[in-house]
């Protein structure tokens, strides 16, 4: 387990862009629809996710968290601005290149329905590698399986697992290819606090023991407290950031969204972390 850190190869924390971010968006805007029905889901967001760190994205419902994550991960394209994974600008890539980039450099954990129902746990974990025709690193996968604690469930189908177990498999899958960045959209949203805690601990270990970069969208201040830093979105804009968060501080910050209408554009454009 501790060997994970030592043995990891491939793009590590140093493989990001010169500014030390594994992923970033610059002046990102995303508009859905046209004319009167247009919704600015992202409105000039600039943010970098530092390599080797665990970043949480928070904000009220509809504030653009998922949109930001999708655009940063190459699942969706920006209306204007640019998105980068390491030194690669996503806007310049075609569908096939984006697919290959996702498969090789990014891992995903969604809120639910993370697993292919026809595949076993083991097959789900190695799915991105199998799709790429890459030979899985047996020791690494083996170690991962132990970390997520699913050794006795390898031959099972997703439908035979609990929600928490399914999410742990998803985390293992996200890490199986040793991606530069793991994006997780409310990975604990469907879980009770204990299962959620296990999943968050796993993500934390991926960052601190294995040197991965994790970006996680969450609603839960307790979950956000596992992160190294938190960025806050409101109405499609970056409104605040917090380093070394605690659940209490995050909760207080969130409450502020509910009580007072937000005004102005603080920290606009300067949302890089130190």
């Amino acid at each position, binding site marked *: 387990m501790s060997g994970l850190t030592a043995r990891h190869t491939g793009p590590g924390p140093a493989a990001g862009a010169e500014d030390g971010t594994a992923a970033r968006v610059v002046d990102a805007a995303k508009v859905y629809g046209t004319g009167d029905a247009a919704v600015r889901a992202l409105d000039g967001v600039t943010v970098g996710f530092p390599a080797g760190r665990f970043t949480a994205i928070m904000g009220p419902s509809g504030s653009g968290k998922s949109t930001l994550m*999708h655009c940063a991960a190459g*699942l*969706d394209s920006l209306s204007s601005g640019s998105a980068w994974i390491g030194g690669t600008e996503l806007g310049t890539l075609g*569908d*096939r290149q984006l*697919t*290959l980039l*996702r*498969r*090789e450099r990014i*891992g*995903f954990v*969604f809120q639910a*329905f*993370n*697993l*292919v*129902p*026809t*595949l076993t746990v083991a*097959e789900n974990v190695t*799915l*991105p590698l*199998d*799709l*790429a*025709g890459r030979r899985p690193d047996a020791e690494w996968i083996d170690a991962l399986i132990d970390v997520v604690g699913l050794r006795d469930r390898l031959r099972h189908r997703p*439908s035979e697992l609990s929600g928490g177990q399914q999410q742990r498999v998803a985390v293992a*899958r996200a890490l199986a290819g040793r991606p530069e960045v793991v994006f997780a959209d409310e990975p604990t949203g469907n879980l009770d606090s204990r299962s959620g805690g296990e999943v968050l601990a796993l993500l934390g270990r991926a960052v601190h023991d294995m040197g991965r970069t994790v970006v996680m969208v969450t609603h839960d201040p307790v979950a956000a407290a596992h992160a190294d830093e938190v960025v806050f979105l409101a109405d499609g804009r970056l409104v605040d950031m917090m380093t070394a968060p605690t659940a209490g501080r995050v909760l207080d910050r969130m409450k502020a969204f509910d009580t007072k209408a937000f005004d102005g554009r603080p920290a606009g454009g300067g949302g890089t972390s130190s």
Partner: protein
Amino acid sequence: MNSPTRAGGTPAGSRSASTGAGRASLRIGLAGLRAHKRRFAGTFVAVFLGVAFLAGTMVMGDTLRASFGKLFADANSGTDTVVRGADEVTASGPGPGPGQGTREPVPTGLVDAIRKVPGVAAVAPVIEGAGELVKADGKSLDTRGPTVAGNWIDEPGLNPYKLVEGHAPKAPGEIVVNRDAARRGGLEIGDRTLLRTPDPVHVTVVGVATFGNEDGEGQTTYAGMTRADAERYLMPKPGEATTIKVRAGPGISQQQLTERVAKVLPAHYEAITGTQASDETQESTSGAFLDIFTTLLTVFAGIALLVATFSIHNTFAIVVAQRTRENALLRALGATRRQVLGSTMAEAAAVAVLATAAGLLGGIGIAAGLQALFPAVGFPFPKGALQIHVLALAVPLAVGLLVCLGSAASPAVRAGRTAPVAALRESATDTSGGSRRRAAIGLCTAVAGVAMTVGGAAAGPNLPLTALGAVLTLAAFVVLGPVASSVAVRVLGAPVGRLRGVTGSLARRNALRSPKRTAATATALMIGVAVVSVFTVLGASMKATLNQTVDRSFAGDVAISAQVYGAGGAGLSPQLATTVAELPEVQDSVGLGVGVAEVDGAGRRLTVTDPAALSRLLDLGKVQGSLAHLGTTQIAVAKDEADKRGLAAGSRVPLTFADGTRVDFTVGAVYDQAGLAGNYLISRAAWEPHRVQDKDTLVAIDFRDGVSTAQGKAAVTEAVTAFGSPDVQTKSEYATSSAAGIDTFLTLIYALLALAVLIALLGIANTLTLAVHERTRELGLLRAVGQTRGQLRAMVRWESVVVAAFGTAGGLGLGTFLGWALVKATDGSGTGAFAVPPLPLAVVLLVGVAAGMLAGWRPARRAARLDILRAIATE
């Protein structure tokens, strides 16, 4: 939807509430249909094609029947009474020669007696026989219908043919031909050619005629000559005619005239009305053919609709399963079972009505198109208005609605049974399929079906038992489908998984997901492929039987055979065998002619030949008695037939001929192998008094020692140019040409089955489209974690291939088995061969798999176009 009513509301109130509820189901059903139009595209197309095929067949059948009816009625409108021989001998069973209704000729002397009957306006003897025209290039005109020669009748109104060019034949050797024959034969007025009756007659074309206003009587070629010529070449002796036609004077009805004429006829002759005669001609010329043709088409429309039923049922089953949550929500909100059931049925009914209506229009379009197409491809079917009878609309309409609603019934009932709590549960796919009960029922049916099929085929043979067994076996295949599909897909899909890595194994597992669905999808294809295989095996077995017969029976070097298929051909001249026999290269040459007679009251074909020479050129097996001296008092009988009728060498057999004479023969010899020789042999001398127009169907030739086949063949070919240059064939060429008709027939069957297979493939495509829709989220996930569009497409396509392979393999197995059973069950004598042609069946398998790939094309493309984010966000 209904306002709160007090308990115990009036009956009227509750009725209006229930109609309101009915309207609600209808509204929900139609909304569902509107929202998911694409899902029903496959159902629509399946019903449309099936109904269009059926309606097209019926409309076309009616139209052709009406056109032919009009054609014959018009052509014979001047004939009020027909006089003919009263006795008719019809030989049953397949085989060449005058099968249907051979009658004794009428003496032309009767004409004078008839002319004296009061009310008779005109009388003419009609001589009709076979006459094959030889084209300008020296080859026989290849015909698709009868080849008729006769006397040109000058009496106005009694001749169905109308001279349009040139003049009527006056001198010996002058003929009039119908326009279609002239065109196809490249013959013009003044051209000299041969007319084979079947002895070659040198003729000159002096006129061109039409049949009514058509270029010909259907496919028939006609040559009209002088009465003297016709008597000489077409009748056994002068002073005889085939029939006598009579026209009535003004004010006399057909009935009256016929009765009066009948009074002056001696025994053995009869008079019938012109209407009856034209009806009978129509029946024998086109009616029987049309009946077979439309029946055949209807059977294949039925197969297509059966296949469609499976596809449609599957579509509804899937749609209902996918809508479990929605239906459960409706139930939770207070919809009754009947309302949910009703909404599904309303959807089905809407699709049924639309598709059936479109199908009817399509069918009429097909019929109109074919009518226009026939002349273009050289079938001069008579023109006539499109006949759209009520029945031709009502039957396809009823069948279409029944198929559609019937297929939707059980899924609709299932929809009604949806538990309200299903709305709250995660909807799981139905992975059942291999239930014990199903397996048990299926196995029992299979055992019973196979046992009956094999029993009926092997012991007996008993066709009804085999047929019942075949139906049970088919049912067993359908019932066992879901049980078998998991195993079959695992086995058939294994190479896919190995070849295509994770894409292949995902495809295979997707096919395994819902065994019932996979089985239902594959079953449709299975039925289509099974029918294709049955015919492939049947055709190959028939060919093998023919080959075997020629192989065992033919002991000569080369053969000359008359056209075996199509009603046409005048046969070979009996002089051909004797001409060839005189060649220095030829050792022996014998002709085989055909005669009919009633043996113990049953019509039988006789082979008219020189039995002694025949026994040297055909292998007759062991012969009891002697073939050398049959003379005019003895016949020879094949062993099987002799056993059946209790005959042995020395038995007495009375034969009744078409001329009404009864002659007692003795069985002079019994031979073991019927083969090419047929069941009865009679000498030419014995047949001579009863003949009408002699022809041979086969001439077998043996060369002298030291003459090579090539040498001999060249000499014979040279010698037969005077006979219209029939093909001289080696033994294997002869076998192949005998089987040529089978290939033509198979091609037609394949073309007809293509529709059923197409519907089955549409079913696969439709199921896949629905599955892709159902798995949207999963596909999005796969794309998110790095599956390329290409990989996704391949995954869907391979799933399609695996399902198609399952259906095709099942169909091949079932079809081969049933083909074997059919061959055995119809082979009464036990001499038929059974052959499984590996190459055609391999082609069927390949085509099935390739078609599966094609069926997966569109769903795969649609799946690959999925927007990842939408897919992930899909509820």
